[in-house]
């Protein structure tokens, strides 16, 4: 219930007074947004100011980094953004390997690419299902989860876990992949392409859906740059920024894939970027499977007690949501001095306040869905 004295009289842009009230979106949501609270000052149906309040799931990951050895911190990396856990582990492991100058065997690198791309597809599938559920279409979520089950079964076969894989190790992988995985992945890629086409028929071309997304939530290039938004957000605003191309890591430079970029800057552009990315990930997986070399999957001699030489080390990966980078500051001990995790969702969220001014509430929610936020990624 709104009490009278909560109604404030503010001045709108043209100087006329208007009455506003404050409502809360969250931290518990009927939709799958996670524990994010957005304090909205509303003028009737229009948002005057939307202030995100995060921190409800702050788990002190960076503090734990200061109290765990490098090998012990690995499970934490999966849990920062649990939907694309492999890529985050890749970031951390890459930083440590870069610091310790370990040469990861090529087979391990290729398998890392394959599993990361599978993880990217599964993350985008969850985003797709949840986004559509926000918009009121409940069926596509189930179709997306059906496909995602196949990916999870594949990854469970090699890693043993379904969501928070602690699969990569410093210097390589936990264990090798077997033929079941390789054949299963090929079969998955073959059946996923017609499914993507089905998603296009069911959702992307649907007129109701298009009317809800086209020209909704424009985010300009300048706004993206100002807030440091990366990933599909900035690629939907016309800037082809992808860490896999700008700062190639692992063996990505050996694959042939395009970076989907759309100029329209609206929610539909961001949606299409992610749908295209799924198709491109399938291409990368196929190429990697074809080129998969034989060999060991772990560096021969990883010291049992790993100490990085003193200094500052950084490594960036393209996670499903944007640029994830790890910065390790070491002072030549077993335990790092500082582990800094730069997560994409925090930067993507920070532009929500400016982008949602003056929008209708359901449109603002469509915008938030198209930003693909994972709240533990924001709070760490």
């Amino acid at each position, binding site marked *: *219930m709104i009490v009278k004295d909560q109604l404030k009289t503010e001045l709108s842009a043209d100087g006329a007074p208007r009455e506003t009230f404050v409502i809360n979106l969250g931290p518990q*949501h009927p939709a799958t947004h996670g524990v994010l609270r957005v304090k909205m000052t509303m003028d009737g149906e229009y948002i005057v100011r939307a202030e995100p309040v995060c921190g409800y799931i702050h788990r002190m990951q960076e503090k734990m980094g200061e109290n765990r050895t490098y090998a012990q911190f690995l499970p934490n990396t999966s849990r920062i953004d649990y939907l694309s856990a492999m890529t985050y582990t890749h970031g951390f492991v890459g930083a440590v390997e870069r610091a310790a100058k370990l040469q990861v065997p090529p087979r391990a690198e290729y398998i890392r690419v394959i599993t990361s791309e599978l993880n990217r597809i599964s993350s985008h599938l969850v985003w797709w299902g949840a986004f559509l559920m926000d918009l*009121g279409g*409940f*069926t596509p979520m*189930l179709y997306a989860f059906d496909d995602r089950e196949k990916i999870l079964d594949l990854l469970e076969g090699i890693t043993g876990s379904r969501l928070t894989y602690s699969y990569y190790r410093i210097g390589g992988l936990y264990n090798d992949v077997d033929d079941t995985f390789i054949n299963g992945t090929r079969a998955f890629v073959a059946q996923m392409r017609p499914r993507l086409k089905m998603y296009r028929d069911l959702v992307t071309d*649907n007129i*109701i859906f298009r009317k*809800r997304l086209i020209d909704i939530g424009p985010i300009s290039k300048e706004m993206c740059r100002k807030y440091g938004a990366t990933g599909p957000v900035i690629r939907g605003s016309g800037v082809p920024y992808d860490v896999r191309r700008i700062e190639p890591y692992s063996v990505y430079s050996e694959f042939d894939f395009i970076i989907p970029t759309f100029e329209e800057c609206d929610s539909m552009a961001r949606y299409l970027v992610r749908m295209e990315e799924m198709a491109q990930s399938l291409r990368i997986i196929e190429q990697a499977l074809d080129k998969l070399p034989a060999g060991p999957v772990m560096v021969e001699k990883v010291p049992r007690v790993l100490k990085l030489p003193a200094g500052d080390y950084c490594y960036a990966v393209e996670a499903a949501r944007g640029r994830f980078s790890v910065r390790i500051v070491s002072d030549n001990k077993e335990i790092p001095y500082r582990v800094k995790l730069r997560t994409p969702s925090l930067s993507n969220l920070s532009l929500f306040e400016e982008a949602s001014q003056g929008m209708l509430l359901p449109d603002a929610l469509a915008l938030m869905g198209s930003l693909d936020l994972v709240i533990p990624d924001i709070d760490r």
Partner: protein
Amino acid sequence: MIQAIQHSLFAWWPEPLRLVLFLVAILSFVGLNAAYLVWVERKGAGRFQRRPGPTEVGYAGLLQPIADALKLMTKQLIVPAGADTTLFRLAPLLMMSPALMSLAVIPWGQSLAARNINVGLLMIFAFGAINVMAIMLGGWSSRNKYAIISAARVVSQNVAYEIPMLLVVITMIMVTGTMNLTEIVTQQAGGFWHWNLFRVWVNPLMPATFLIFFTCMLAETNRAPFDMAEAESELVAGAYTEYAGMGFGVFFMAEYANILLGCALGTALFLGGWQSPVGILPGVVWFLLKMYFLIFSVVWIRWTFPRTQFYGLLNLSWKILIPVSLVTLLLTSAMMKLVHA
């Protein structure tokens, strides 16, 4: 011959007894349907989503609606402090009654209409207007700001979609020349090409008319993709927020009763009512088959499309449906005057 049996069974009863029996039959039919349409919806939703739907309670989940009804009935009927008690309690009943009353004029089979009223169609739409008021009362008497906002949206949505609905129905009245539903159905005798849906020589845009009717029916009953009222809520639950237990249950049943009414009306007006394309089964079976096909389409549409945006919904009505139905009306009257004078 089947008609003869029906006639002999029912025609000789004294009128009040026949009426009471019909009303009891309709009430129980609606009650059963309101419960089992929930089952149809949940199983249908499951199947569309490649999962089984309810299976545990009873064989294939058939007792699920009973379990849900029992659950709702055992909950406390909370009336919020400060709410207008009479109106609060009245609103669900007001939503249920028009649907029940209107079903009395639907011709379920040959000589199976409770009342054969000459202005049957007019009666249905007159009672239908009470629905709008019922939702408004429900939202208003809850004394909850979000309920009022949501109820206001529902009212504007319903009013916007009543206009093309009425224009379409006026077109059909012109085509058939009568408002008596029994007569409308009798006119569609013969093979299925005699159904009103295919009478394009009188109304060239007849399939469009049917589609407009169907769309308006979806919007009037607040079904997806036009369910901004119930599910709009990324914030709250819409006009029914404050209703607990069976109060909510009656709203829910009323929604299904309205869907039933809308599909029954669509069948009678467009799909030939109880007329059978092949004369093997009694008329009432064909009526039910056609009606359930329309209800299945309603469920199908709900689980396929996302929700429209609120202004998109109103734009659709005011900018597309009303002009098209006006054009249909003019075209039909022109055709009738020029061709069939």
